[in-house]
């Protein structure tokens, strides 16, 4: 049973992959442990947001992803 982890923008290069699967349920501590120390440091920065099931979390430390859900790691945008 798994959660799909999707990395966007520069976080993709930092992790060396666009997505991966991690065991469900996935909480904030589990997420930090599942990624590299460099990526964990980025996730701890308030510039990086996390979306779960298509909704951006107001408090990313409250992450509670269930089996089949998608968690996206969102660095600052530079669009338009």
């Amino acid at each position, binding site marked *: 049973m798994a959660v799909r982890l999707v990395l966007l*923008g520069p976080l993709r290069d930092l992790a060396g992959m666009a997505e991966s699967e991690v065991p469900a349920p996935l909480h904030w501590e589990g997420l930090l442990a599942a990624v590299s120390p460099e990526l964990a440091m980025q996730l701890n920065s308030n510039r990086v947001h996390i*979306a779960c099931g298509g909704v951006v979390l107001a408090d990313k430390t409250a992450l509670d992803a269930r089996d089949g859900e998608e968690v996206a790691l969102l660095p600052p945008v530079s669009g338009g």
Partner: protein
Amino acid sequence: MAVSEALAAFDAAHCEAGAIASFVGKVRPDETVRALEITHYEPLTLPGMQQVADRAIARFALLGLLVWHRTGVMTPGEPIVLVAAAARHRRDAFAAAEYAMDHLKSAAWFWKREQRADGWHWIEPRGQDHEDLARWV
């Protein structure tokens, strides 16, 4: 679809409009930049664009609003983004197009990187984009 075709279709769909203002954002020609790549995150990007459009519609007296954004690899001179606002009067059309662009730049879920001679480089957000947004508070 080309920008001119999209604008022609938008114009035809709003024959009651007295004003249509449009903005096209392009890949800025720069000798050191070979290409620009824009990526997005499907579950958030389109709903985010719709939210920007809904806010513009609630704020200005509009007859219609077009918000169009490309993703993928583009070369200098190519269009990236198109915003068009149709209104009875010009002030609403101008303001809505600018409002939509300012919000897209700072709040829509897109990431850009440039290809230069030595490879790809991610583009950092500009502080100016957030200052532009503050004008509308």
